[in-house]
């Protein structure tokens, strides 16, 4: 459905110098700063997939989405959505896609919500019977009827997001782009939105690409994730695989009685592993001693007995690494090997 090949986007801006003097200097200099927002990314997405597109702020997520929707022209590389190049054939592409940008509405701000749908019906040439059938379906999953008569500007954020999602789906697009669809929403509304996305995907086989910072979105919706960092693709694969590759760490926190005795402890040597196999940390306020280790190489009882040899332990907590932790680690690392 979507083919992205070696796509790059550079933003060129005039070089700026600090201060008033600098401003004057900048006026006369011809120097340019090139920022590569997206750097040689390729992937392809099949019909009906829900793909999570994630990365830290400024990683280039939105830029990629904007290239796929035809808003931005790539500096290098090509992109095809349902066989159409969005830059050469913007209007044709626009008929095939639906877009929700979480922080920007596409609706008519001052008009009752229902009017926006009527206008969109005309813009996308939706036949009357399709229109009523789809409105029924959207009402069902998004519960729009509660506020269909209210001007868009009076809607709450959650209502507006549901309305925007409905508006993006009215013409039954083949591809749905969601840029942070659950940002700023409470847990109940988040749940509703996620359920709606799932239902739409199942009913119409809509391909969904979603950027988010919410790990919950990814865990509940996406079978596949793509991670980018500083414009480069660093992971593309299933969620399960990501957890397998990176979720091999376990963490034990122990509240101990004799912290001064920790000096006698040399866990790395005891287990014969390097720093990546086992690392420790001590938090003084709570007297907690934390050991993070590779669960395939070291067992929990081994750690416990080693620690208990030197000090008394009052309390123990064992944590599996969560997805959020994995993602954070990948962002920090910059690269991942699991491509």
């Amino acid at each position, binding site marked *: 459905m979507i083919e992205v090949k070696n796509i790059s986007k550079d933003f060129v801006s005039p070089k700026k110098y600090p201060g008033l003097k600098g401003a004057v200097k900048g006026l006369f200099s011809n120097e340019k700063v090139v920022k590569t927002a997206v750097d040689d990314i390729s992937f392809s997405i099949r019909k009906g997939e829900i793909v999570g597109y994630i990365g830290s702020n400024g990683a280039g997520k939105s830029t990629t989405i904007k290239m796929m929707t035809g808003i931005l022209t790539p500096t290098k590389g090509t992109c095809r959505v349902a066989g159409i190049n969005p830059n050469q054939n913007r209007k044709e592409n626009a008929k095939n896609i639906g877009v929700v*940008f979480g922080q920007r509405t596409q609706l008519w701000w001052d008009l009752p919500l229902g009017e926006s749908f009527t206008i969109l019906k005309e813009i996308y040439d939706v036949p009357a019977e399709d229109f009523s059938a789809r409105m029924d379906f959207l009402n069902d999953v998004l519960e729009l009827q509660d506020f269909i008569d209210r001007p868009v500007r009076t809607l709450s954020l959650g209502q507006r997001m549901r309305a925007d999602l409905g508006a993006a789906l009215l013409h039954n697009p083949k591809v749905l782009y969601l840029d942070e669809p659950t940002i700023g929403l409470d847990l109940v509304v988040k749940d509703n939105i996620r359920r709606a996305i799932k239902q739409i995907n199942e009913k119409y086989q809509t391909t969904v690409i979603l950027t988010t910072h919410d790990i919950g979105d990814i865990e509940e919706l996406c079978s596949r994730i793509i991670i980018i960092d500083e414009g480069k693709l660093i992971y593309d694969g299933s969620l399960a695989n990501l957890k397998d590759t990176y979720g091999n760490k376990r963490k034990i926190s122990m509240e101990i009685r004799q912290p001064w005795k920790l000096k006698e402890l040399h866990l790395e040597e005891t287990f014969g592993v390097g720093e990546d196999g086992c690392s420790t940390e001590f938090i003084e306020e709570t007297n907690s001693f934390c050991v993070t280790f590779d669960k395939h190489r070291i067992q929990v009882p081994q750690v416990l007995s080693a620690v208990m040899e030197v000090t008394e332990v009052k309390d123990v907590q064992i944590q599996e690494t969560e997805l959020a932790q994995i993602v954070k680690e990948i962002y920090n690392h910059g690269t991942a090997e699991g491509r």
Partner: protein
Amino acid sequence: MNACKRYMRLYRVLAAQFFKTVMQSKVDFLMGLFGFFFTQIMGIAFLYLVFDQIPSLQGWTLDQLIFIYGFAQIPRGIDHLLTDNIWLVAWRLVLNGDFDRYMLRPMNIFFQIIAEKLQPDALGELLVGAILVVRSLAKGIVTVDAAHVVLFFVSVMAGALIYTSIKLFFAALAFWLKTSGPFLQVAYQMSDFAKYPTEIYAKGVRFLITWVIPFAFVAYLPASFFLKSGAGAGVIGFEWVIAIVFWCIAYYVFNRGIRVYESAGN
């Protein structure tokens, strides 16, 4: 043909939504109406005050000057009524990334921009223009025959297109500069020069408003054709040539601009 019909239907739908929006805040709408009537009444009063002091100018009589002034208001008003939203492109839509929404809809982008807003204030200009032209007819200083009446409308359309082209060209610079409002403002204000015969200006100014930012072709030159003992009909043809050339340049630059559009971060 189908596309044309579709766009006409869409224009009705979009214009209707604009009026609904305007009507939603009736107070604003009434204030706006009152405001523009007041402005126009003041404008006419000012006009008489000024022309009262100048009996004739470089061989032009007061009545002829009033015709040129009035005639100039009509293409200006038409453009103002229909394409006022271009200003927003210059000032902020490109800068804040709201231009995105035009890129996401399956319609011509220029069409979307102009269909989004009508400017009722322009009715003031059209009204003043019409009153002054009718006044000139009553005075008998304007040639009235079938050809002149037809050419009057032909000329007004070309004039409006020149206005639109100039606005579009300077607004399109926003794609490179992020905001081009100040440039557009300066260019648009040049049209004030065109309300008077260009002969009263220095050579440099005359060249500028005839060939660089061709407002002279919107008002003074065609208006002199309609005045008795004025220029030949060729000037209207030339006005259309200018209109089409400038439109092509502006539309080309606008489309190039869309390709370098950078949107805005969230």
